[in-house]
């Protein structure tokens, strides 16, 4: 086997010129510093959501690691790759137009019928027999290449369906700019922003003319399968780069032949959809294999009739078929009248006469891939594959793999030469293809799949295209878009995102409440032998803990023993406990609203949540450590509140987060006061002290009333005083304001309900003041507070019904419900 080419060192052992600046900078750092940079890259990736937020949480479980050493490409070499990539994309574009149109290539024998009609990736629903498709099927393209020992880059796979990796490449560049500034300054790689600006511009131009909305700017959306998709973070990055709304299938609906986004402000039109979901799950009406709940019924028909542009159009994935590579040179001559500049790795379709025998007999085991499944990683020919190939040769393609070129990679200890695959990206503006001056280099270590779909995790390098000193500066062409009118709202808020923010608010507050209750309990347990007053307080706290679902009934203190209570609290902070589960739920919700959070906000969320989880993980059963873990949880909740208040505009998203938090807190305040006041009149003072502690109002009370505890002033502070942000009245006012902000009007039944509750709270205090014996009156309050809690629960349900009522389930008709047939007589 020939030796692989070394990207960095030439045949005589000299460093190639385009590596000098990078190596100089990397070498100048020294190894300890390089280790630190590698760690910094890893940390940054984690904080920004490339990796999962909490270990084991379902969200975004992607482990992409960016190597601190980039892969530099000289300007002239990239220029050749760029034109090769553009030509190859053009070829596939024309070929797809033929396959989804007249099919001359099949008729002329340039393409075996099996690769079209026997190919599951050929989506008949997108073909129009009569006329060619209105728009090019292919708009976005990527190729994955290996450099062969002869120094030539050749294509291993064409990516035309999901075209993953673009967002990762963008993110790598950002991370590298921060982690490796010296190398950056030394090499001055070409920037990526222009590429994304041009792409965004071209996407907007794809918008079909919209009757009656001529003045509105085109709406571009990026369709993702959701936050548990392995490439969710990439979707977040991409949607930001191209200013597209990040949407999931459930956010969309087709009405009157056009696509709309369901938002809190009603249906908003979508003109261009960059799809990151499998084409066959786009529309359950068109694809029999789709589930009823998949996709958006009517979406394909909207695209078919030009009311919507899909990037890429369904069916583009056909061009990923590995066997196609064998036919591209001839097709290029026929369709473009040109020689194919960017060749494929030598590939044969094993359905061609003699091809299977050649593949099986060759000296090197080729890469065997399913002939028509571009997503499959493929494997080197072995015994099992040999049998499969012999049984059905036309189902496979064989590719001769060269030893891929090696580039220095930092393993964490040393720089080692490892093989790399280079993924390049391009988009079409309708006239020409633009290649991104950069790319994603995958390190082909032992675990990396060779070809196929971008894996969910891996080791990658940023690709630096070095600038030609005299190169032209390219910027987006002058746009003739209508000026955007100034808006003060936060744009269309998809209903799903509002729902998630609402629940994020509720769960963060629920965690805050759990931490407060537990901290209060732990501080009493830590005193060893409790005073009689503390015994009563612990009983009341245990009631609150049971009510909040933090401990079970059995854990209540009994007969002076608090062992079970302490054990239950230790259990609650484990990942399976109440606190741990709340943290996991928050982590997963944070991932779902990743696109609504700035990087700083997200980093704050993640850092403080991780700290809280870590404090719980190491707490064990020590009361002091558990207390510290509670403080870490409170710090997280405070950080969320601070970030929300200082960094979010007071628009749709913030309103729902606020509404969730305030409703949850109001319910907690009422429940706790009710439980704590369930005391005989003689003990009411202990209850009042606890009320102040749980509502974080001890100091305020002391400043106002010194040390004398009386029911009316205490309950005024926690129920009726609208200036106490931990009290009920404040929550009700905030709920009313949030509801008014969402509804766009203060005239609303829900707002009235919130107002009624605030008045009921004021009436409680008035009645206490008028009572002959305040302690007696206070101990009779719990039923009245319970009624208020019920009213609040009704308000919460009404909010849920109005804004988040679940849609009825979708179902498919006409598959298995044809009535039984009657035999024709």
């Amino acid at each position: 086997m020939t030796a692989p080419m070394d990207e960095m060192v030439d045949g005589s052992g000299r460093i190639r010129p385009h590596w000098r600046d990078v190596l100089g900078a990397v070498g100048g750092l020294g190894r300890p510093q390089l280790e630190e940079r590698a760690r910094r890259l890893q940390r940054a990736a984690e904080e920004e959501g490339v990796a999962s937020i909490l270990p084991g949480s379902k969200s975004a479980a992607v482990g992409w690691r960016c190597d601190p050493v980039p892969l530099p490409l000289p300007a002239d070499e990239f220029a050749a790759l760029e034109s090769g990539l553009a030509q190859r994309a053009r070829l596939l574009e024309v070929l797809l137009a033929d396959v989804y149109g007249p099919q001359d290539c099949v008729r002329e024998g340039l393409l075996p019928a099996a690769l079209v009609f026997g190919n599951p990736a050929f989506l008949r629903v997108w073909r129009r027999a009569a006329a060619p498709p209105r728009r090019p099927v292919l708009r976005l393209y990527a190729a994955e290449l290996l450099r062969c020992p002869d120094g030539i880059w050749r294509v291993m796979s064409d990516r035309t369906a999901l075209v993953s990796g673009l967002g990762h490449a963008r993110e790598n560049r950002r991370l590298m700019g921060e982690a490796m500034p010296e190398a950056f300054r030394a090499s001055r790689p070409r920037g990526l922003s222009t590429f994304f600006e041009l792409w965004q511009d071209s996407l907007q131009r794809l918008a079909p003319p919209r009757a009656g909305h001529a003045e509105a700017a085109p709406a571009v959306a990026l369709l993702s399968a959701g936050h548990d998709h392995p490439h969710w973070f990439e979707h977040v990055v991409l949607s930001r780069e191209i200013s597209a709304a990040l949407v999931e299938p459930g956010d969309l609906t087709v009405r009157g032949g056009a696509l709309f986004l369901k938002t809190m402000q009603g249906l908003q039109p979508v003109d261009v959809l960059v799809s990151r979901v499998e084409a066959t799950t786009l529309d359950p009406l068109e694809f029999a294999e789709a589930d009823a709940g998949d996709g958006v019924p009517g979406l394909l028909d909207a695209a078919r009739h030009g009311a919507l542009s899909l990037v890429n159009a369904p069916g583009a994935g056909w061009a990923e078929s590995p066997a196609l590579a064998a036919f591209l040179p001839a097709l290029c001559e026929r369709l473009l009248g040109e020689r194919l500049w960017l060749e494929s790795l030598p590939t044969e379709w094993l359905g061609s006469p003699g091809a299977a025998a050649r593949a099986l007999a060759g000296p090197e085991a080729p890469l065997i891939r399913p002939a028509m499944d571009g997503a499959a990683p493929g494997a080197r020919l072995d015994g099992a594959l040999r049998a499969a190939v012999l049984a059905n040769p036309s189902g496979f393609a064989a590719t001769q793999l060269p030893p891929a070129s090696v580039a220095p990679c930092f393993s964490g200890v040393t720089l080692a030469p490892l093989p790399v695959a280079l993924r390049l990206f391009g988009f079409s503006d309708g006239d020409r293809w633009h290649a991104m001056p950069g790319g994603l280099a995958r390190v082909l270590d032992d675990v990396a799949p060779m070809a196929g779909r971008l894996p969910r995790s891996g080791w990658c390098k940023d690709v630096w295209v070095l600038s030609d000193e005299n190169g032209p500066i390219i910027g987006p062409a002058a746009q003739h878009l209508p000026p955007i009118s100034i808006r003060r709202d936060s744009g269309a808020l998809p209903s799903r995102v509002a729902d998630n923010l609402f629940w994020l608010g509720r769960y963060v507050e629920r965690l805050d409440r759990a931490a407060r209750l537990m901290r209060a309990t732990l501080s009493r347990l830590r005193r060893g032998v409790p005073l009689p007053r503390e015994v009563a307080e612990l009983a009341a706290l245990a009631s609150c803990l049971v009510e909040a679902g933090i401990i079970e009934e059995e854990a209540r203190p009994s007969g002076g023993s608090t062992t079970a209570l302490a054990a239950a609290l230790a259990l609650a902070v484990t990942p399976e406990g109440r606190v741990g589960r709340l943290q996991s739920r928050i982590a997963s919700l944070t991932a779902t609203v990743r696109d609504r959070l700035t990087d700083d906000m997200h980093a704050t969320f993640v850092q403080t949540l991780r700290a809280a989880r870590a404090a719980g993980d190491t707490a064990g059963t020590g009361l002091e450590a558990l207390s510290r873990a509670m403080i870490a949880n409170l710090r997280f909740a405070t950080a969320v509140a601070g970030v929300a208040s200082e960094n979010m505009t007071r628009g749709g998203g913030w309103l729902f987060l606020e509404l969730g938090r305030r409703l949850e807190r109001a319910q907690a305040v009422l429940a706790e006061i009710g439980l704590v006041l369930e005391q005989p009149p003689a003990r009411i003072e202990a209850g009042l002290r606890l009320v102040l502690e749980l509502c974080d109002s001890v100091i305020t009370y002391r400043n106002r009333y010194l040390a004398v505890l009386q029911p009316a002033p205490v309950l005024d502070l926690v129920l009726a005083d609208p200036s106490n942000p931990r009290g009920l009245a404040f929550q009700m006012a905030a709920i009313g304001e949030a509801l008014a902000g969402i509804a766009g009007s203060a005239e609303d039944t829900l707002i009235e309900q919130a107002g009624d509750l605030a008045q009921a709270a004021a009436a409680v205090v008035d009645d206490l003041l008028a009572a002959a014996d305040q302690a007696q009156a206070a101990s009779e309050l719990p039923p009245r507070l319970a009624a208020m809690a019920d009213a609040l629960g009704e308000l919460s349900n009404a909010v849920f019904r109005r804004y988040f009522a679940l849609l009825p389930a979708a179902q498919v008709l006409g598959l298995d419900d044809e009535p039984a047939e009657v035999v024709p007589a």
Partner: protein
Amino acid sequence: MIYRVRHVTTYRYDKPVDLASHLLHLKPRALPGQRVMNARIRCLPSPDHATETHDHYGNATTRIFLAAPHKHFEVVAESLVSVDFAPPPPAEDTMAWEDVAAAAPDGEAAEFLFGSSHAPVLAAAADYARPCFTPGRPILAALLELNSRITREFRFQAGVTSTSTKVEEILRLKRGVCQDFTHLMLSALRGLGLPARYMSGYVRTRPPPGQPRRRGADQSHAWVGAWLGDAHGWVGLDPTNAIVVRDEHVVLAWGRDFADISPLRGVILGGGAHRLTVSVDLEAEGGA
């Protein structure tokens, strides 16, 4: 023969359907031997949006979208169609079936060589058919024998199979309905390397002697389109009735199998449980 076709499909839902999309293959296609004098589709409630296209196979395809809540949905497809398909050539004049198989990959029928979800290329089905396909036998002779054999050896019985019943299962059950026999024959022919397509449409109901025609008793029908080679093209074979398609069938559409061209498919939001009734009338004009 001229037929007046009336195909009524009715869904009744327990709960209101909020949003519905339906994909219809309910307009007869114009063909040599089949003239469509008129064809129309009406729905109740009337759709908010509807489109008409021709699909990949050239079949007329209608999509209708309803955005107002409804508990009842009815589609009425009516047409007036004149049918007189040319008689097939004498069986002995057709090519040897092996030669048809050899010519198929480069011919116009190549698409229908490949397996599809409901009619995969299946060795067991090919084995079932192989006794009819003796070496060198003219293809039509073999096809006619297979067509009759399926009618003879399989019992027509509704309710034992569904649209998701696999061909293997049909071979084992030895019973089913027209769709099943069609899928079986498609699998068998494709397994022998012969192109075959799924034909959807209707067959006329012959009135028993002395009785009026049974109105509303019929359903959608299905049969096989088999390829005889470039010279003779396609022939329609109805393995449910052991007949060659001449003037008793009306063609709606063709595809690889049922899934490509099911007469009516829909996705609804809401609705709960539903009841479906279908009636097909194929009345010969002039009472013939």
